[in-house]
């Protein structure tokens, strides 16, 4: 039937094109990781060679783990990311439920108001955000970051989840109401479990930008004890710019957690991106 679409020459060309682009995409990561396991001389003499018995060295990792507080940074990033996701999902789902379930005056207007933030980046308001965080004493705390990322993530979260909540059957909710469940119980017991796929999509969309952000940690929480992993590695690499072993090891250590997250969540992420959630 579709002979033209199965043409062997086309298939080979398609694989060749994709393979070349895959190599381009992975090459820098590969070079960084293999060289982080080599001695300084081997890094410069044969940058593309795999580490062998002679050139293998962990000196870079030793420097990084001795000098930088990478575990603290990692912990901070984890708290900020998980905390922000928790509030985005909880508050976002509650607001989405209110907009999708009840008819009240100002419903459409409220929906539009919350959707404004999808297109306008929160960074524009940074000057006033910093001022506010200084006034409230939240500057250099992880709460400052959690609040900012929650506000940033809510618009898209409400949008995606309210689309999903409109599809939850009314009969189910009405049955709950006849059984005397309160509106809160209907939301937490009946609706929330049914929109888990939408929550996963929202979580995965928000996770990586929050983890990788440099702007707000740099401005709102630059102090040593609240540095995130992204800011921490930026500062560390800046200081050790001539120690190539340390820089390459720090880069590899920064790649590691994101890659682990990606391996765990890539199916969710790709499903979310391709399910038309952003249409």
């Amino acid at each position: 039937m579709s002979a033209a679409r199965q043409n062997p020459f086309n298939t080979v060309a398609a694989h060749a094109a994709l393979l070349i682009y895959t190599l381009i995409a992975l090459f820098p990561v590969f070079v960084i990781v293999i060289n982080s396991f080599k001695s300084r001389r081997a890094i410069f003499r044969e940058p593309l060679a795999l580490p062998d018995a002679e050139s293998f060295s962990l000196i870079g990792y030793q420097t990084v783990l001795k000098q930088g507080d990478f575990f603290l940074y990692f912990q901070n990033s984890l708290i900020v990311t998980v905390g922000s996701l928790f509030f985005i999902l909880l508050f976002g789902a509650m607001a989405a439920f209110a907009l999708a379930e009840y008819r009240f005056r100002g419903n459409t207007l409220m929906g539009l108001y919350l959707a404004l933030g999808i297109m306008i980046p929160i960074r524009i308001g940074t000057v006033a955000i910093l001022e506010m965080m200084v006034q409230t004493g939240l500057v250099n705390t992880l709460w400052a970051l959690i609040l900012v990322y929650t506000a940033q993530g809510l618009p898209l979260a409400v949008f995606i989840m309210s689309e999903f909540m409109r599809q939850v059957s009314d009969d189910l909710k009405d049955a709950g109401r006849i059984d005397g469940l309160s509106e809160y119980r209907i939301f937490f017991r009946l609706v929330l479990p049914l929109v888990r796929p939408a929550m996963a999509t929202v979580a995965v969309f928000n996770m990586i930008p929050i983890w990788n952000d440099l702007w707000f940690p740099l401005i709102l929480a630059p102090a040593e004890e609240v540095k995130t992993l992204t800011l921490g590695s930026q500062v560390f690499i800046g200081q050790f710019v001539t120690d190539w072993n340390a820089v390459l090891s720090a880069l590899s250590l920064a790649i590691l957690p994101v890659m682990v997250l990606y391996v765990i969540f890539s199916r969710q992420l790709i499903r979310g991106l391709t399910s038309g959630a952003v249409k």
Partner: protein
Amino acid sequence: MRKHENSPRFRWHIVVFLAPAVLVYTAVMIYPLFNTLRLSFFAEVDQQRVFVGLQNFHRLFGDAIWSNQFWNALGNNLWFFLIHMLVQNPIGIALAAILSHSRLRFAAFYRSAIFIPTILSFVIVGFAWKLILSPIWGIAPGMLDAVGLNSLYAPWLGKEEYALTTLSLVSVWQFVGIPMMLIYAALLSIPEEILEAAEVEGITGLSAFWKIKLPLILPSIGIISILTFVANFNAFDLIYAAQGALAGPDFSTDILGTFLYRTFFGFQLQLGDPHMGSAIASAMFLIILLGVCLYLFGIQSRMRRYQF
């Protein structure tokens, strides 16, 4: 059926459901946004905040020290955006078109691998490319040497005329995965019957792409364009990670995000000025608003959407 529609009682639960999101969103996003716009009409005189009307904007556009920086940053930002539109999005569309071929093996593998740079932080991407392109390490010159193009090598990130283009291409490398995924999704949603009908008419291969698939995915291309625009006009991290806040060499990679950062936060000898920073942020806000409105009213409303 919404049973509570005509309930005479005030429905407190609606308030409870809406309040946390609306409060956080208003307090941390909307209020600071407008407060920043307001602050752009103030200045600090004798450690007092006083209203100065449009004076900050007069300085930003009238005073050569400021206006040169502003137009330089805006021009660089436009070039940054142009390269994304001309390189990132076509490559993304091409990759998606190849991936969406039915019965292509390993499609999931390619898709996941090509998306990897997108999940890495700007710090990793910026430094990794800085090292690879560095004349000291010699990976880039070594590879060009291997194919006999040694003469083409230059320390791209260190030369004023190449640095911005190089960084734009690095950013393209990082984000190609996003248009790829969105277009891939759009291509998969085209029903098989349409393609089969075209095949019966003798339209296959490339001409099927140009004549049938491309018109059908135009709305998705529109969305990608506006997403690229908004992301590019508040970009900051990659330039900062690779070139620092001074966006060297000699401000040749300065974009609006780095200009805003230097102005309001201060850097090295320059003291931070939140009011001039607010003026720049307001200009960025207007630029982004203009782009979004142009898209919503000029492009999206005229585009035909096909329902399958």
